[in-house]
């Protein structure tokens, strides 16, 4: 990384990874997400911010069709990953979720060993052919998640025995073990202390060279620190979407400014 890195923060050399057009989400009668158009770039961290209930988590869950598991939730509009509509009837959500990984708010490792936690995804998707290959995938994932040094001597101990920050890194390792192309993170640091949060943010910064990362966060400061693009949601609408530096120094929409400066909640 050269020392003029901040000058090259513009990411317009990357292609669109995810294209969403006219997305509407209904929970029963409640129109939760209205008319969202957004292009999410590859090899970039995109942050979704907004007050509680604004629809950012809802939209995130549309991207890997987790909303399918919620009764009464209907999604309209088109969401394309690499120009393929993920809501096409021919698409199997299970296969989609191998390509689009997810990390949740509260660290939720399986109550199995660390090794089994990471190996589960590749196993059920048949991504490896031998135990040696599986070992390699587990090691690579744990290394990328910056957990290998702490975990390599206790791969068979339960995943739930780690600290909060380590558990979340384990969940990240588990999500990247299936070699996804997009990584979705729903408030991954909200249950962690500041040091663990900083370590996870640093990890996200390193991961973005391989994946497209979309992170929902209720902390604007976190969005400012970690993302290159930010989308501001308010009352179900996508109010503004742009380069993070510009959004936090000179946003276009007055609602964005009000939210960022702490004038509306």
């Amino acid at each position: 990384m050269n020392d003029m890195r901040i000058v090259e923060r513009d990411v317009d050399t990357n292609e669109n990874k995810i294209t969403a057009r006219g997305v509407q989400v209904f929970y029963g009668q409640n129109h939760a997400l209205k008319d969202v158009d957004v292009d999410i770039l590859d090899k970039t961290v995109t942050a979704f911010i907004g007050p509680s209930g604004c629809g950012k988590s809802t939209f995130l869950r549309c991207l890997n069709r987790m909303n399918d598991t919620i009764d009464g939730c209907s999604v309209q509009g088109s969401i394309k990953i690499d120009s393929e509509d993920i809501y096409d009837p021919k698409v199997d959500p299970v296969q989609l979720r191998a390509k689009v990984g997810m990390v949740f708010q509260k660290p939720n490792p399986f109550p199995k060993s660390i090794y089994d936690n990471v190996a589960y995804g590749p196993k059920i998707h048949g991504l490896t052919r031998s135990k040696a290959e599986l070992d390699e995938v587990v090691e690579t994932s744990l290394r990328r998640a910056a957990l290998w040094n702490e975990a390599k001597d206790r791969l068979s101990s339960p995943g739930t025995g780690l600290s909060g920050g380590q558990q979340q890194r384990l969940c990240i390792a588990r999500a990247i073990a299936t070699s996804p192309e997009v990584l979705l993170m729903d408030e991954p640091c909200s249950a962690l202390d500041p040091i663990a949060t900083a370590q996870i943010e640093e990890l996200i910064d390193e991961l973005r060279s391989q994946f497209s990362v979309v992170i929902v966060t209720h902390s604007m400061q976190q969005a400012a620190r970690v993302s290159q693009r930010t989308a501001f949601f308010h009352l179900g609408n996508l109010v503004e979407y742009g380069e993070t530096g510009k959004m936090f120094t000179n946003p276009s929409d007055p609602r964005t400014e009000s939210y960022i400066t702490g004038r509306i909640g």
Partner: protein
Amino acid sequence: MTGLSASSAAGARKGSLLAQDALTVQRNASETRFKLYGIIAITLSMLALIWLLYSIFSVGTPAFRQTFLTMPIELPADKLDKSGTRDLAVMSKVTTVGYAAVIQAALEKAITEKGIPTEGMTAKDIAGIISLEAPAQLRNYVLANPELVGQTIDFEVLANGRVDGFFKGRVSMESAKLDSNIKPEQLILSEKLVDAGIMAQRFNWGFITAPDASDQRPEAAGLGVAIIGSFYMMLIVLVLSLPIGVAASIYLEEFAPKNRWTDLIEVNIANLAAVPSIVFGILGLAVFINFAGLPQSAPIVGGLVLTLMTLPRIIIPARAALKSVPPSIRDAALGVGASKLQSVFHHVLPLAAPGILTGMIIGLAQALGETAPLLLIGMVAFVRDYPSAPMQGFFDPASALPVQVFNWTVRGDPGFVERASGAIIVLLVFLLIMNAVAIILRRRFERRW
């Protein structure tokens, strides 16, 4: 609130923390009273439990000891094996009457050898101290070992129930005078036989292994058939209700759409758990015996009826166990790309296992103790033959432990009262073992979580 706070606030500000105010004293007093009620309730229930156990054990433990006569018995070939060829077909023609004579002769011989006086007693009286079951015992033994005919063997026969009762304190000399089944002279003879070493009390394995015996022979009655019958039924209940119950609860909890039909099913399952068990007996009678033509009093019918009864009692705790698994685990599994089925079987089920197991063992323990439905399908009958090995054995007539208890309780002979209590003890022991297994299994699974 403001008025209260104004006056008490003024007071609180003036008073020190080291002096408790009236409200605090009141609160503490009511808490102490509540704790006292709890302790009293626990003490009372402990006392009741101790009294209950004492009364059962004091009546029931004697059932495990029985009076036997051990003496050399001559097996005359001319009487027992007319053909001389040890042919079982021929030897079977000799009935228990013939063997009774053999035993009687042996007893008289033993008495004269030991020099015990028997004046005033007829031969029938002397023979009367032996159980009426004894000839059958000897006959079965000889037919199983035909080569012993012609020899003299040392054999153990049961003593009469009244004699046994005399040694256990149920029968006394005074009551013997009024009793038609026993005379005081027989009791005196029995004492002398004990002194001579011919008669003795020992642990009665036969109580657990022998089949039931008729009214005249409480001393020979045993739980063998009942235990096997109960065991077969529990096996059937386990094999049928566990998979069906768990699969049903998984389907209802994870896969079924949430609409009015599934709500209806849920209400019905909850109601089924509360249906009186005798209703299931009527159902079993109508469907399994009358319609399907399965044999009466067979473990298969009992097992099926108990399965129907146990299913709701498994489904309800299984559903609760599945519900208690946090949704974050399901989300994590789905997020990594598991299908619904994989997430349920690989992740949710192992975590719900302790709860499901506990529910299942409790359901089994309840089924073990159910009597009413079994009565209706005919298990109250008197069954002497052991059911054979599974699967055929499921269709042979059998009894069940709680039914046997009921059976013995309604018979007149006081010897059966003792045996009924003994059977209750056996039942309690089984229930204790099952609960212990439930606790151990639960601990083992919970540690992994």
